[in-house]
C-alpha cells in the first residue's frame, strides 16, 4: 500500500521542465552535501533493551474504543473492533459485562456493512458478514441478523463459519415458530457435521 503510494508519486510522467525549485525543502548538513544516499553515514541508534511500560487493561480498552468511535479509516476501526472483541472473549471472567456497549455495536454494524459494500471480493467476507450478524443481534435486530447469516451460508457455503451460521439460523427460526424452516436448517448443521 505504502509502496504503491510512492510509486504513484514517482510515476508522474516527466514533463519538459522538471521541478522548479527544491530550495526550502531539502536541507542538508555540510557533511552530507554532494553525497549519495549510499554514502550517507547511517544514524547511530541504540538497540539496547528497554523495559516496556505496563498499561492497564482499562486504558487499552479505552484506546480501542477511541479508535472504533473516531478513526476516519474504516480498516482501522474494524481491526480495533476485532481486537476488542478478542479481548472481551479473553477477559470474559474478569469483565463479565464485556467491553462492548450499544454505541460500539452500532459503529460495528455500520463499519461491517460499509466494508462489505466497499470490498465485494474480500476473501474474509464470510467473517465480516458473521460479525455484522452478531452486531445486529446485539442491537436487538434478530431478523436482520438472521438474513445476514442466510446470506453468509449462501455466499460462502464452505466457510468455516457456515456450520455455526446454520445452527444460529435454525435456533432463530425455531424461536420464531417456523418449524419446517428450522428443521431444514438443523439438517444442514448435521450434514456439515457428517461431512467433517
Amino acid at each position, binding site marked *: 500500500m*505504502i*509502496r504503491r503510494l*510512492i510509486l504513484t*508519486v*514517482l*510515476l508522474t*510522467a*516527466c*514533463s*519538459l521542465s*522538471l*521541478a*522548479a*525549485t*527544491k*530550495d*526550502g*525543502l*531539502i*536541507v*542538508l548538513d555540510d557533511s*552530507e*552535501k554532494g*553525497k*549519495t*544516499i*549510499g*554514502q*550517507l553515514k*547511517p*544514524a*547511530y*541508534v541504540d*538497540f539496547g*533493551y*528497554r*523495559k*516496556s*511500560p*505496563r*498499561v*492497564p*487493561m482499562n*486504558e*487499552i480498552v479505552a*484506546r*480501542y474504543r477511541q*479508535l472504533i468511535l473516531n*478513526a*476516519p*479509516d474504516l480498516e*482501522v476501526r474494524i481491526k*480495533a473492533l476485532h*481486537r476488542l472483541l*478478542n*479481548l472481551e*472473549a*479473553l*477477559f470474559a471472567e*474478569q469483565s463479565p459485562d464485556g467491553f462492548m456497549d450499544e454505541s460500539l455495536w452500532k459503529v460495528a454494524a455500520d463499519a461491517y456493512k460499509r466494508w462489505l459494500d466497499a470490498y465485494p471480493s474480500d476473501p474474509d467476507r464470510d467473517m465480516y458478514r458473521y460479525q455484522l450478524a452478531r452486531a445486529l443481534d446485539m442491537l436487538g435486530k434478530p431478523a436482520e441478523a438472521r438474513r445476514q447469516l442466510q446470506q453468509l451460508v449462501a455466499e460462502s457455503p464452505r466457510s468455516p463459519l457456515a456450520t455455526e451460521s446454520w445452527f444460529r439460523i435454525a435456533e432463530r427460526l425455531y424461536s420464531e415458530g417456523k418449524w419446517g424452516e428450522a428443521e431444514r436448517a438443523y439438517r444442514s448443521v448435521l450434514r456439515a457435521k457428517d461431512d467433517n
Partner: protein
Amino acid sequence: MRRLILLLLCLPVWCAQADEPDMLLYGQARFAALTERPLEVLTLLENDHTGATHIDNDFHNEDHVLAIEASLRLGLADQAIELADHLLFTARKESHKSKARLLKARALAQQKRFDELVRWLEKSLSHLKGDMRDEAWFLVGRGYTETKRLADAARALSRISKGSIWAAYGYYNLALKYAQDDPDPSRAWVALRVAAALAGDTREGQALRDRALTVAGNLALEVQDPEKAAQFVKAVRADAMEAPSAIYLYGMSEAQAGRLRTAVRTWHRAKKYALYMPGVAETFQSIAWAYVQENLKGSAIDAYLEAISVYEKEQQQTRQLLDELRQKGFLELVRAARAEQKSTDWFLNTELVNNTPRVMFVNALMTDAGFFGQVTELLQIRDMASSLEANRRKLAILEDAYRRASGGSTRQAVNKIDRLEQRLGQLIARRNDLVGAYKEALAANDFARIGSESLLKARKRLDAVVAELKRLKGVLPGPTYRELSRRAIRLRGRLVWEDMAGMDESRQSFADRIKVLDGLIASMRDSISRLRERARNGRVHFAERMQQIQRMRARADATGDRLQRVLKTMDQAMTTEAINRLEQHLDRMARFHVRSQLALVNLYDALAVAEYAPERVRENQR
C-alpha cells in the same frame, strides 16, 4: 491575446522597415522570457509591436518565436499553433521556419494530440537540425509512447544524438510506460538504466537520473529484489527531491534482506525531511515496525509515540495552513511564505524544514511544474495590478493638482480684475471731477479754480489774511489798518494778474491731465478685457486636461477592475487547488496517525495479555 494574433497577422507584408525597433523590443521581450515572465513577453509584444514585416528582419521573426514560447508557457496552445502557422507562412529564413515547426510540435504535445504530433513531425523532421532535431525525435518518441506503440517509440529515441538529454527524457517516459503495462520490470529497468546513463551531469540531468534510479529501486522492491533495489537507490543524491523516498526504499531493501537494524539506521536519515515529501511519513512507522520485528517492544512503543506526535503536529500545522488559505487565499499565503523564507534563511540552514510549514508547503507546490507556471502567471498579474494601481493613484494626484491649479488661477484672475475695475472706477471719477471743475471755471470766468496749485494756495492764504484783517479792524490803529487793507487789495490784484497771465498755460495743462487720465482709463479697460479673456481661456484649458485625465482614469479603473477580477478568479482557483492538496496531505497524515495509534495499542494489548492471561492466550490460539 486574440488581439496579439490579429495584430501580428494583419501586418502588411509590403511594408518594409528598419529592424532597430524590433531589435529593442526583442531585447526587452527576451529579458522577460529569461526571467520567467511569459505574460510580460506577450504584453510587450502586443503593446509595442512595431508593425514591421518579416522580410529582412530577424528580430521581428524572433519576436514571434518568443510569443509562441510564451504562449506555450501559459498553456495557450491554440494561440501558439496559430502563431507558428503564421510564422511558417511569412518567415523567409529556414532557421525561423524550423523553430516554428518544432514549437508547433510542442503545442500539439501540450494538447495531447499525439497522432497529429507524430504525423506533423514525420514531415518536418528533415528540416530540423542539431538540438531541435533531437527534441523532435523525443517528441516523436513521446507521441508513440502515449499511443502505446512502444517499439516505434524506442526506435525514435534511438535516433537522438549521443549525449543529448532528450534521449534520457525519452527513455524515462518509455520506462514508466513499461512499468505500468508489464508486470516484469526487466524492460523498464533497461530503459531506466539508459535514461540514467544518458542524463548527463547538468542540474537537470542529475535530477532526472535521481528520478530514474528511485523508480528503478521501487520496481525492484515490488518484485522482492532488495539487493537490486539498494543498488539503484544508493546512487540517488542526498540533496535530490527524491532523497526521502530513496532513503525509505533503501531502508525497505535492507528490511527485505532481513537487516532490520540497518534499515532502522537508514530510516532515521529521512526524519529531517519535510513530512509533505513522499517517503518521510512512512519512515516513522517503518522504524517502529522494525523494532517490533526485532522484538524490541519498548523501543517500538517509543517509536510509535514519536510517530504519533509527529503526525499530530503535522496535522495541527496543516489545519492552521488550511484556515489561513481559506481566510486569505493562496496569493497571500505565497506572499507570507516569501517574507517568512527571507526571515528564516538562517534558521533553515541549521534546523528542520518541518518547523516552517508554510514555506515548506509553498516550496513543495513550486516543485510541481504545472503549479509553478500558474503561480508565476498569478504573480505577474498581481504585479500588473499593483503597477496599474500606482498609476491610478498618480492620475488621481494629477487630477487633484489640475483642479487646484485651475481653481487658484481663476480666483487670482478674478481678484486682479476686481482690483483693476475698482481702480478704473476711481480714475473715471477723478477725470469726471476735473472735467466738471473746468466747466464750472469757464462758466464762472474764475480761472483760478483751474489754476496752478501754488496760486490756489496763495489765494487761500490771502483770503485768510483779509479775514484776519477784518477781525482786527477795531483793534489796529486806523492808519495801520488802512495801509494793510491797501496792501491786501494790491496783492489780490497781483494774484488775479498772475492768474490771467497763466490761464492759457493752466487750460493746456488741465487738458493734458485729462488726456493722460483718458489714456490710463483706456489702457486699464484694455487690460481688464485681456485678463477676462485669459481667465476664460485658462478655464477651457484646465477643463480639457481634466477631461483627458478623467478619461484615462476611467480606462485605468476599468482595466484595474478587470485585472482584479482575473486575479480573484485565478487566486480562487489556486486556493481551491492548494486546499485540495493540503486536505489530501491532512488525510494522509490522519491515516498514518490512526494506524500508528492502532499499532501502539496493539503493542500495549499484547504486553498486557502476555502478563495477565498467558494461559488464556494459548488456549485461544488456533
